[in-house]
């Protein structure tokens, strides 16, 4: 594989891969390592991929599998059956509230979503892969992906509502202290 192609591949995909890795690892440093490791695997094996158009899906899949491999064994991932039915209309902040939130706060809320839902949900919001590609990647039927998206969005809305309430609470608590110091 030529250096030029490799550089282009890195430029085209390292940012979305990092964002996906960040949602998985919840830690920027680990996310950076995971992204690098993914390109390392590409450097070793990627040249064997005959269809360059599939490079993106290959990289995302490889990153996800590498994450699963590295993660400590025995950690339990929540199963769909463990959770109750989807809330029909869970409380959620208004869109303009989300728009006004800091991006890092939104990512924190996303990281609070159970991993089984967070993986397809993050990929969905990155908009790089279709639900079919996501299904292939996580090796789940399409209906399962849709279901996980639905439940994941419900959890995300609830997490965002908590973040928003927390942010409002912090501001309220801060004012009296400030006033006391000033008086």
């Amino acid at each position, binding site marked *: 594989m030529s250096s030029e192609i490799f550089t282009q591949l*890195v430029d085209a995909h390292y940012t979305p891969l990092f964002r996906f890795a960040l949602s998985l690892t919840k830690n920027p440093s680990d996310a950076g390592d995971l992204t*690098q490791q993914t*390109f390392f695997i590409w450097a070793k094996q990627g040249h064997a991929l005959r269809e360059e158009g599939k490079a*993106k899906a290959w990289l995302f899949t490889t990153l996800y599998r590498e994450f699963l491999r590295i993660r400590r064994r025995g950690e339990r991932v929540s199963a769909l059956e463990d959770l109750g039915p989807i809330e029909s209309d869970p409380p959620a902040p208004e*869109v303009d509230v*989300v728009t006004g939130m800091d*991006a890092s706060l939104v990512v924190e809320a996303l990281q609070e979503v159970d991993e089984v839902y967070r993986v397809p949900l993050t990929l969905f919001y990155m908009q790089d892969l*279709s639900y079919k590609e996501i299904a292939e990647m996580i090796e789940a039927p*399409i209906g399962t992906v849709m279901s996980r998206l639905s439940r994941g969005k419900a959890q*995300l809305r609830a997490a965002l509502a908590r973040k928003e309430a927390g942010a409002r609470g912090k501001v309220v608590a801060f004012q009296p202290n400030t006033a006391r110091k000033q008086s």
Partner: protein
Amino acid sequence: MNNAEAKFILQGYRPNGTDADDATFTAALEQAKNDPGVAEWFARQRAFDAAISAKLAQIEPPADLRAAILAGGRVSGEARQRSWWNRPAWMAAAAGIAVMLGAGVVLWPKTAGAFMEFAVADAKMSAIHGGHGHENNTLQEILNSPDTKLGQKLPINFANLHETGCRTISFRGHDILELCFKRNGVWFHAYFARKTDFPNVAKNTTPVLQDRGSIAIASWTDEEHVIVVVSKTGRRNLEALL
């Protein structure tokens, strides 16, 4: 299809509209058109999804990550032990990549053809790239229009496009703008470079078509720009734009 089924399916509809041509969503989208309740729910859903996507897109990798990937170095100075970094195979591969990169700079052909090969390689890597901003959208609409012919004068304001969110990639240290557009159900990739960055490219206001296997390329220049349009679906689709 009932409303609950339509909502279930539309959960997977990406807010940027990329899935508009996916048959899986056809019936559900139709339901959203015909049922005010589903329509309102879908509008709220898309607005919410778009807001989350926009927030996620604001997250930038560490400044040194790209260089670290290319050079095979570590992300930070933290002395965290990662067994795979210490493997000889990784060090060898990193060194190999560094050598390839160094050699690549020397071996790159100094012709305009290299820009075209760069555009082809970039187009191959993704079906649809991202880009946003008013300037981006305006130019995209013009390119989407069946009345627009390749080679005609386009309102390209390079600086504005770059600053307002048009996808920008780097080639030999020069900014290249890339914008996807759709005609007759087929996606094309348009690449715009400043002519001053490629002074050796001859003036050629009439698009010239070339083939790279199943990929077709049209290239031309205007007063200020070198323009390359790549079609991954062959020459006939590109010829239809002339």
